[in-house]
């Protein structure tokens, strides 16, 4: 169980690092630009 706690702390740290790197390289803008246009594939138009 203690190993699980350490493992979850490590994953938490990786998650935080990934988010920070993602923000640093501008990924939220990619997500935003895709999500603010109607995704024709997602709704089944093509």
């Amino acid at each position, binding site marked *: *169980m*203690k190993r*699980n*706690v350490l*493992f*979850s702390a490590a*994953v*938490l740290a*990786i*998650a*935080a*690092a*990934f*988010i*920070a*790197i*993602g*923000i640093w*390289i501008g*990924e*939220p*803008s*990619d*997500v*935003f630009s*895709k*999500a*603010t*246009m*109607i*995704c*024709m*594939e*997602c*709704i*089944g*138009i*093509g």
Partner: protein
Amino acid sequence: MMQRKKRHIIQAAAAVLQNGYLEGFFTGGIYKGNGKHICVPGLNCYSCPGALGSCPIGSIQAVIGGSSRDFSYYVMGLILLFGVILGRLVCGFLCPFGFVQDLLHKFHTPKLKIQTKLDRTLRWNKFLMLAAVIFLPMIATDAFGIGAPYFCKYFCPAGTLEGGLPLIAANSAIRAAVGPLFYWKLFVLAAVIAASIFIYRPFCKYFCPLGAFYGLLNRISVFQYRVDPGRCTHCGACERACKMGVDVTKNINSIECIRCGECRNACKFGAISASFGEALKSSAKPGKPEVKH
């Protein structure tokens, strides 16, 4: 029963909060505000007219499938964060498509029990879906290096239900563009809806890539379920109550557990507990079962 109602209230509130842009349902457009920079934890199509945030599965495919990046640190980081804190509690409480399936299963019809061997085999399928979400947009690209969001395009029933149908109803230009792909996706949605009436959460069990991802983190998530061996009488009530087929007493934080709490509600002896930091509590006293008085 009361606990189940409370969960459904939370599920309904989560669905409304994630899809609160009501104007979109009338105008046939989608929300274009800053909320779309952030992914919501559950499967919620960002082309739903009401969606205030981004779908993590759609986003990860959009970023990986774009010509400039091969990996999405940001989206992967967000879903790792949701998963390592909540695990599949997201599926049980926050996912709008999970809520839809819960409601469909309430129809008073005979319920189908899939043969154990077939059920176990089919459950691996959601990991294939997860692999397809991550790797297909990376590998199967066009001449410009752009990969399509294959899962969304050919399969995702949430996109058809939450995005396709409301937009087609409210937007004549989109209605005019309906073709064979839409009919295919409509067929998938109809199949999932029909299956959900007879089988509990078939999409979550067999197809959801997000559920597969969160399931992998169930065992190490901050939110944990725990069986108190001092109180458990092995009566089997918890396992009979679990609609996800989890072997509760042996593997309560199984990949398949959506943390709905049905096992805890069914236990007359108070042997099942759930909270944030259960793992921390038990690691403080290794090997000693905590008997509640």
